[in-house]
């Protein structure tokens, strides 16, 4: 008779400063700081106006995906860009890709303001469910009825982002313009002051409303930057490790994962969809059951 592995002990309860300043609260602060930076840049650019003699940066100049779209043109033309992009787009894109190469899709989970907005809306939805019973009942009914279909769709909808990535990058390379711009919810958001209707505005609306029901719908299904970052992140030496012996399979990790990954059944979490938010690590009640590790890429982990 073999002895059954005993789960590790429960994590000690944090008190005082340690209870407040966790990696999760630090992540929220980082996300907030980057979101406020973009709000500031947008406000300064709008208030100065396009014709101003004071040089102000457009928020578009900080979009990393613009860097991916203009990269081909920049190389083949010897230094020119597709309209609406600048050298800063290439630099920020390089920062995102280097971060992915070293630390997986951490940009998505820790920095991206659109990801943060989706997090905020989903948290608001969770708050509403907690305090308003009719809303909670409606969400539960929708979830229960739609669960089988949604589980099936969720698996396949995740491939859309690779199509968007290929279309937008090759489109910009062939036509010399950002073919994705009019459909981009981020572009629609930062250009809201122009009051022009684009399909991107519809995509933004769907993303914001969808965030009430599904966590990070844009990131899961359609974000081309997340697709590029996730694919490059496969080369990263960083990964999440679930120790089966220490785990009680309580499913808390899976339930808190904003990308809907099945963490409680995995051994190593190296999914391209993981945004490295580490919510699962923070919420895991057991010592050493779920940890961030560094190893050699492609080696047995």
């Amino acid at each position: 008779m073999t002895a059954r592995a005993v789960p590790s002990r429960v994590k000690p309860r944090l008190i005082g400063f340690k209870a407040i300043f966790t990696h999760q609260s630090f992540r929220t602060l980082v996300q907030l700081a980057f979101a406020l930076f973009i709000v500031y840049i947008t406000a300064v650019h709008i208030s100065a106006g396009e014709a101003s003699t004071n040089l102000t940066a457009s928020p578009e100049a900080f979009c990393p995906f613009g860097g991916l779209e203009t990269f081909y043109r920049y190389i083949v033309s010897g230094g020119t860009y597709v309209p609406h992009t600048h050298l800063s787009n290439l630099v920020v894109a390089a920062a995102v890709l280097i971060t992915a190469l070293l630390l997986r899709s951490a940009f998505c989970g820790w920095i991206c303001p659109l990801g943060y907005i989706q997090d905020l809306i989903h948290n608001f939805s969770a708050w509403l469910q907690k305090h308003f019973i009719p809303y909670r009942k409606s969400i539960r009914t929708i979830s229960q009825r739609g669960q089988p279909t949604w589980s099936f769709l969720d698996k396949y909808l995740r491939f859309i982002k690779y199509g968007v990535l290929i279309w937008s990058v090759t489109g910009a390379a062939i036509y010399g313009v950002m073919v994705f711009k009019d459909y981009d919810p981020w572009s629609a958001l930062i250009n809201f002051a122009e009051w022009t209707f684009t399909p991107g505005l519809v995509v933004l609306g769907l993303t914001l409303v969808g965030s009430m029901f599904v966590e990070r719908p844009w990131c899961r299904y359609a974000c081309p930057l997340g697709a590029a970052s996730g694919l490059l992140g496969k080369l990263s030496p960083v990964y999440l490790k679930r120790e089966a012996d220490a785990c009680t399979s309580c499913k808390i990790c899976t339930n808190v994962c904003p990308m809907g990954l099945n963490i409680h059944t995995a051994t190593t979490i190296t999914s391209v969809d993981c945004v490295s938010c580490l919510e699962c690590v923070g919420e895991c009640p057991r010592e050493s059951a779920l940890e961030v590790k560094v190893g050699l890429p492609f080696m047995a982990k």
Partner: protein
Amino acid sequence: MKINPMVYGVVVVVVFLGVIFGFQVAGVWSTSGKVDTSGKSIQPSAADVNTIKGWMTLEQVSTVFGVPAPEILSEFNLPADTPPSTALKDLESDTFDITKLRTWLQNRSNP
């Protein structure tokens, strides 16, 4: 090797901002089409259509490339009453964008 999640978060911020600051220190940074990396003002040049930027006005392009503004408007099916002071980026539509204008001006000067 195990990493503390807080340390991981700090490393994410340091790497991301570090790459950007590194490029900035090396002089590889520009957030506007109005200036180059050295801060020198960019002006349209008749010799190079790639100097045309979205912030430039219809009037500027018309003057530098010697093409009457009504001809540009007509070529791209833009309203004839468009003020010459309009920035090119504000004229973007299904029929007009900076790349199309550059190509047209290039072909016009080298038939």
